[in-house]
């Protein structure tokens, strides 16, 4: 499934993360994080797993992370995906 509509979730406050979804032909993830060196890989894996769970195969996912914990990043990605009309696979 492709991302067909823009969606936004989260904030840029400390310990939060903002997720933006944009329609695109291919799947790509852009991560900007104040802890990218320390947790960049963890964040990317987390986002990829979420996209898989929601069966997203194409779209641009932009993450602007202010040091959010995994459960917060997951919540913001899920919120954005649902706002874009996506549902998790059963």
């Amino acid at each position, binding site marked *: 499934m492709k991302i067909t509509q823009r969606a936004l979730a989260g904030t840029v406050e400390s310990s939060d993360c903002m997720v933006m979804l944009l329609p695109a032909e291919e799947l790509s993830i852009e991560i900007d994080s104040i802890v990218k060196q320390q947790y960049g890989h963890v964040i990317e894996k987390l986002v990829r797993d979420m996209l898989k769970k929601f069966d997203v195969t194409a779209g641009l996912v932009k993450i602007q992370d202010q040091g959010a914990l995994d459960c917060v990043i997951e*919540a913001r990605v899920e*919120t954005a995906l649902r706002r874009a009309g996506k549902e998790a696979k059963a």
Partner: protein
Amino acid sequence: MRRSMLFLPGNTPNIIMNADVLGADSVILDLEDAVAPNQKDAARILVRNALKTMDFAGCEVIVRINPLSSGEWEADLEEIIPWGPDVIMPTKIGSSQDVQTISACISRIEEKHHMEVGHTKLMPLIETARGVENSFHIAEADPRVCAIFIGCEDLTADLCCERTKEGHEVFYARSRVVCAARAAGIDVYDTPFTDINDDEGLRKDSEFAKGLGFSGKACINPRQVDTVNAVFSPSEEAITYAKRVFQVIEEGKRMGRGAVALDGKMIDKPIVDRARRVLEMAELIQKKVTVHE
């Protein structure tokens, strides 16, 4: 034991992360008033994930859901219930029917997720004139109801009166809900004190509530927690007295006496019950302080 219940906004990761260190016996993760209408979805997902992953060591978690009129409450429950919050706080409860509607929905979700049906407790928030008048029926509406909680901000609006610090306007309502809860054999919690900079006012208001029979009080700011905890903790004198009550009972048993007296006063069942509650609470507080390594 819930001396203090601290409201925390449900959509603020930074605050939720530290919910368990703020000293409150319970935290109320709020999906209602503290969350903007267009962020309800985000908040319930965030609170759900927090329940899923965080420990909240030694701190009870209550989730306040949106009112029946909102069209959000069922979605709140769908997300939250499977992750086992200790208590759900439904808002603007006006009748026993309201409670039963919510309880039935929770039962469906519990069943769907193979949870023990009835596991999730309810603490209805009474904040309308109708709710106050129906408070006994609300307290008795369902086995899930573990306590009721009065919210005087919305209530005064409904009563068409001004909310004052002295609180004369809500004296009847507070007394009424205490009586209703006690008649139903459950706990009852008092409205928060809204001036976060008036510690003396908070202390007085808490002492007044304790005097009416409330089990504890809600806080809207972490700064209020210590004062509320202090007021609703048993005093040193009360603990000493309670210990003496059990001492004389023991002595009486040894001497084969049926009735015993302390300081010239007969010890009857209400005194024993109260002494037991005091000691149980003192023990819980002691545990809370020494929960560390």
